[in-house]
């Protein structure tokens, strides 16, 4: 038996059936609130994962487009000049 259980046991040790029933109602209500918080966090975690996936995709696209353009060596002026583009 853990310390928490011993502490609870000392609290409810003298209770009769009616008192224990009231106590049980109380902990069930508290537990229901905690379970609701957990369910909310669970939903929130879905959003977190979705946004992370999007950030990953966005950064990958940016990586392909920009890292190739700027972080890596861009073409020289001469190369650009060879493009047969005239405005």
């Amino acid at each position, binding site marked *: 038996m853990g310390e928490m259980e011993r502490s609870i046991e000392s609290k409810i040790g003298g209770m009769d059936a009616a008192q224990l029933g009231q106590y049980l109602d109380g902990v069930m209500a508290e*537990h229901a609130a905690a379970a609701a918080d957990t369910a909310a*966090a669970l939903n929130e975690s879905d959003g977190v994962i979705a*946004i*992370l996936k999007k950030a990953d995709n966005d*950064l990958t696209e940016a990586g392909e*487009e*920009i890292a*190739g353009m700027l*972080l890596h060596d861009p073409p020289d002026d001469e190369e650009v000049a060879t493009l047969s583009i005239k405005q």
Partner: protein
Amino acid sequence: MAESAAAPGNRFDNFVAQRVGVEPDQVREFRDNARETARAAFDATKSKVIAGAKEGGKLAAEGVKSGWNALQQWRESRANHRTVENGTQQIDLMQAELEGIDQQVLSVPPAEALAMRGRQQQLRGQIGQLATERQKAASALANYHGAKIEQPRAAAEAQANAIRGLNERMRTSEQARDIATANFNAINRQISILDAQGQNTSVLLQKLQQFGKQIEDHTSSINTLNQRLGTAQNALDAIRSKHGKKIQFAEQLRGIQNDGLSGTLAVNRRKPEARLSAPVSELRPEPSAATRPETAAPTARDESSETRPEDLRAIVAGFAKFIGRLPGQLREMLGKLNGVDKLPEKFDTENVIDRWNEFAKQNGSGVKEIGASDKKTLVEMLPTKTNFVDFALAMRLYLRRDSEEVLKGIQGTVQKFLDAEEAKKSKAA
């Protein structure tokens, strides 16, 4: 036209009939039918082809302009990047020199110390100027790349905070589950005691069962949340690992923007062969006829005896049409002929035969040269100015070849003609 000159028409029919080995009437009938069919088909598609060519040219011009603008922005961003990089290096060097002077200036003779102080002042001015330039370039870079780098970086950062928050909530939930479990066990034991005392515990047992179910569900949710958080944490770690350089780049840009003297850009350069193949190729569109000033203006046709190359191309295109097909490739070529907005109604027969022979000679197989005596006969047979249908018919009968083979030859001729023109233009440019 043949109808307007009965005698030449008859002579032509006789000539062809003799060549092909049929009756002149058959030739005439065939010619008349073919003319009508070809004319109707050509008229029906001509305007569509020309409209399509113009629209295609317009789109191509817009594409080139857009690509050009993107290229300019890209070049500016590259220049800004170099300004930031070079500025960082120079500032680092100058700051190192400043520190060196600080260490020496108190232990040198006054004259030297004065010179050092002067140098320090000069360095500080240069550093300030470089820092301003670097800050400006960093701001321009951040603007250029902002949405693409900063937003996902910020999203990942925000989610890192969210993960921390969720982790805290999960720990709270785990504590709540532990307390509930301890309560369950303690209450269960107390119920056993009350039961032994003879008290009525049936309601308590029912409630305890419900409580046990609640705890099970709660535990299941916590386990799922735990897994999700693990997934989210892994995703975040992957982002940091995979996109570290981009995130670092965005953060450095932000740092330099905020404080011109802090932050450095430590980005890896790729080997030259890995350069930007995709963007460059996107910016290198196939030259469009519509974008070439020298061919952009549609020309109104005259009816002079001079047969221009454009006329010949139109004739050849008309010929292809006449023999029953207008393949995509040829249609595309016709579309590129931006100057052809109206086919010539008539052209000089002799001139066109000369042109025909010129290209047949240059391009070899596929198109047969018209011999001197046949040319003479054709010129005599056909009116001095004729239309392309008559000419095409004459050519077809003259060549006495399968349509497919003739078409192939014509396509090659047209393509070579266009290539030769392009080469001339390039050389002239």
